[in-house]
């Protein structure tokens, strides 16, 4: 194991100054549930680890009707699912947040770490994508916003410059008729990495329940989690039927570019991309219908 120096900046400014001075030698530490494992196995060998958990802006967790949801990049998963209003409004996000590891891991693991780590199998990324999440990134040049689907550029690689880090995620308030779901397939019932995963979100028309908006994202079937625009668009204006859901599911499978590795085969993953998309859509529909029902009361 490589030895390193631990630093704990107290402000955004302090953190970005340190990062721009040390760039590639420094690694950000949030919950450490990926980073510490990587350091221990010597797959990364930073000279500095920069703990960003003590910067106030990274710990924001709030919702309001106009601004929507804001989650600081260093907020641990358990705080998200423990927040009743957020859990009620975004069950499709909670699906993902509650899948990561187990209770102990969720006490530490963050959205920022999950996204920045850029694993093709990261559970929160497809869910964030279908929620249309935007991420604010801060660096020496100031703050810029990136859509979550644009953050991962390859396995373990993200689009941030060496002096940049993730500040917070923002998601719009859910519209009436909105529903989302995320699920993954693992061979066991817990403590595993997705062989394939899928997230879906929908907005149903209050009048005829046709699809006004749909987004589908799949995970662990390509070098990065994928937003499959064609699959979502195929549903727009359509009623949700077995046929339309199947068509979208097959479009998702077609977009998948999986590999065969220790966790799965190409054909298994393509097939699962379709199966999971179908299941994600069915559950998203159920939630969307509940939202419509809630609004009509």
């Amino acid at each position: 194991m490589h030895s390193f120096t631990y630093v704990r900046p107290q402000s955004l400014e302090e953190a970005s100054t340190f990062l721009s001075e040390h760039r590639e030698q420094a690694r950000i530490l949030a919950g450490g549930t990926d980073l510490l494992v990587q350091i221990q196995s010597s797959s990364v060998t930073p000279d500095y680890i920069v703990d960003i958990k003590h910067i106030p802006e990274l710990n924001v967790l709030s919702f309001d009707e106009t601004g929507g949801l804001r989650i600081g990049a260093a907020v641990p998963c358990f705080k998200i699912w423990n927040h009743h209003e957020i859990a009620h409004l975004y069950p499709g996000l909670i699906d993902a947040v509650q899948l990561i590891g187990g209770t102990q891991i969720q006490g530490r693991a963050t959205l920022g770490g999950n996204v920045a780590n850029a694993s093709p199998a990261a559970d929160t990324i497809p869910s964030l994508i279908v929620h249309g999440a935007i991420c604010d990134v801060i660096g020496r040049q100031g703050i810029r916003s990136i859509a979550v689907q644009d953050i991962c550029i390859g396995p373990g690689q993200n689009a941030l410059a060496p002096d940049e880090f993730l500040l917070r995620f923002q998601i719009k308030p859910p519209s009436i008729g909105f529903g989302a779901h995320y699920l993954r397939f693992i061979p066991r019932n817990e403590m595993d990495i997705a062989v394939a995963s899928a997230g879906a979100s929908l907005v149903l028309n209050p009048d005829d329940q046709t699809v006004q908006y749909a987004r589908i994202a799949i995970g662990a079937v390509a070098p990065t989690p994928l937003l499959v625009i064609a699959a979502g668009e195929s549903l727009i204006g359509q009623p949700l039927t077995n046929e339309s859901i199947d068509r979208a599911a097959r479009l998702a499978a077609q977009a998948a570019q999986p590999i065969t590795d220790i966790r799965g085969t190409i054909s298994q993953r393509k097939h699962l991309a379709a199966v999971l998309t179908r299941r994600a859509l069915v559950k998203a529909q159920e939630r969307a219908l509940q939202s419509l029902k809630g609004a009509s009361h």
Partner: protein
Amino acid sequence: MTEKTPTLDTASESKYRIIGKRVDRYDAADKVTGQAVYGADVHPSNLLYGKVLRSPHAHARILSIDTSAAEALEGVHAVITGADLPSVSDRIVDLGETATSLRYQSDNILAKDKALYFGHAIAAVSATQPYIAEEAVSLIKVEYEILPPVLDVRKAMRPDSTLLHDDIFTDELGQKSTQASNVASHIRHAQGDVEAGFRQADVIIEHEFETTMVHQGYIEPHNATAIYNPSGQITIWCSTQGSFGVRSQTSDVLDVPISSVHVIPTEIGGGFGGKNSIYLEPLAVLLSKKSNNRPVKLTMTRAESLAATGPTSGSYIRVKLGADANGHLTAAKLYLAYEAGAFPGSPVGSAAGSMISEYRISNVLIDGYDVVVNKPRTEAYRAPGTSNAVFAVETVVDELCEKLGMDPIAFRLLNAAKEGDRRPDGPTHPRIGFIETLQAAQSHDHYQTPLDGKYRGRGVACGYWGNWGGRSSVSASMNADGTISLITGSIDLSGTRTTTAMQLAETLGIDLEDIVPQVADTNSVSNTEGTYGSRTTFATGWAAHKLGCKLIDAVKERAALLWDIPVDTVDYEDGCIFSKANRLTFKDISKYLDETGGPLMVSATSFEGGHGPSATTHIVDVEVDPDTGKVDILRYTAIQDVGKAIHPDFVEGQIQGGVVQGIGWALNEGYFYNDEGQLLNANFLDYRMPTFLDVPMIEAVLVEVSNPRHPYGVRGVGEVPIVPPPAAVANAIHDAIGVRLTALPMSPARVLEAVWEQTPSAYLG
């Protein structure tokens, strides 16, 4: 001989005072509070830390090793390579459940001219800190000539295959062949005339099967701490199933007198057969010797444990069974090719002796091959070699039942072996309880309750295992308060301190609280075989019973002296010594020891034979998700002939543990090598053992068909429960979705492929 009728409810039996009770185990409090001392807790002063350099290649010639940079690193005390091990002869050494040539054992501990598997130890260092040792290892430069890896057992058997060793000549049914080969031996068991048997058959089923290497997956990785003192005395602390095995193997490999090796076993965090052989012990000793006699500790990581300590064989198996229209088995032809790993010694022999032994078949031909491949040397794993072989046999039996339209239990009852029947490999069955397990299964609520629901299925499979007896030693000293210190050489993996003490207490008629059992080191008790072969409660328990008889004789003598009467007028019953005029409790005699000759100490050994084989019947219900290939275990019942359950909790624990490991083997466990022979899943994330969420409560049904050859009727119980699960699950999957899987593990990907083959339109990709 009057046979005891099997009882299902041990609690109701009142013949014994202590045996059969669910008493607290002696080691429980220490283990749940973290006080128990494991190998990693041993910290002699001046301790140095060792680390092993391992081969990144599956097959490579070692051209040179340059250790100079490692030696120059500050904090490094010693570096050793294969050249530091003495050259040893070719004689066969006992590894507990397996045996090997001493030279192979030495070569496995440190490679000499060739690295034979990914993870093969090449060199080792000692340093003041673990991280320095790690860095030192990375500074060792090894020049390799990479050779083509031999990874597939059938390819390895071809005459034109690359050879691992140029000095292995197939032992062909006892004759050495003249051409070097990867096939170390070919064994055969033949009875009757199989071809004639198949001519009598109305239904014949034949299938080929493939299974992958799996690991025991004990929670505590191998470790060893050793001191080589200047006079040549060696002390080793380690986690092992057999301290005497560590002593003899270390003495063999290092070519030092056995009396110079003192092994102190620590508590053990699981073994399942994987902790019989030594790996680290000679390295720690040599490093200590080269480090000015400072103690050196070596501890494997999980990755090292998976990559470089014995898993059990992957295999290629063919099974052909014939039965007549009435359901009688007429012939069995079995072919087994087992991966031994890098050195000969797979469990193909024990597989051949147990895979079909619970059935009565007149015509049997079993051919078994022990084949070296560039993978870690295999070691015993719970009923070595049998689960994968039974997966094959019981799948074919299930299909026979299907074709004959017979109930799987009725079919097995018709063909079940019993006392006096001959096993295909020669021995005649003593009293066994296979039929009783089938009867209990037939009437069990699980079998009687219909299984409803789509994609759900039920499977039945059986298993047999011979068990082992062997050598055990115990001693007892009476303390001033009349309690007994009981010393055993048997490593306690599963509560055997307690079951040994229970048998002693039962014999003596005293309270269990009056016995304090302890597992001793190799200088404190006589030779005791390792805790393997389901032998300890049987054999060490037998020694404890003999010890009790000797103690009774001893206290009777003391009482005779005290009362000044002839010893034959003294009697003993229910913990009391008495004559016509006198009476003392067993404990009371402690007050009179000095008057009757001083301290009281007795020892006993056992080497009796007479171990009773185990048979078992398992029933499992599964639900298959045909869209994802995932198999969920809904209900599992294991009905086993356990002889006499000395401590029913422990027996149930053995059965549940064996079943869970068997479910892992069935569904997701398996070594995953790339084409270069590198192990890609040497961690518990991708080597998928079941978690608690993956198994239901396993119901263990104890059928007690007493072993007439043991004082308390004990049979081994620990191994046979792992035998049927892969077959039972496969049969249940077939019942659920109509596909037969013939490869282990039956992972979701494999289930899906079988579904797609059956229904191509099910593929959505």
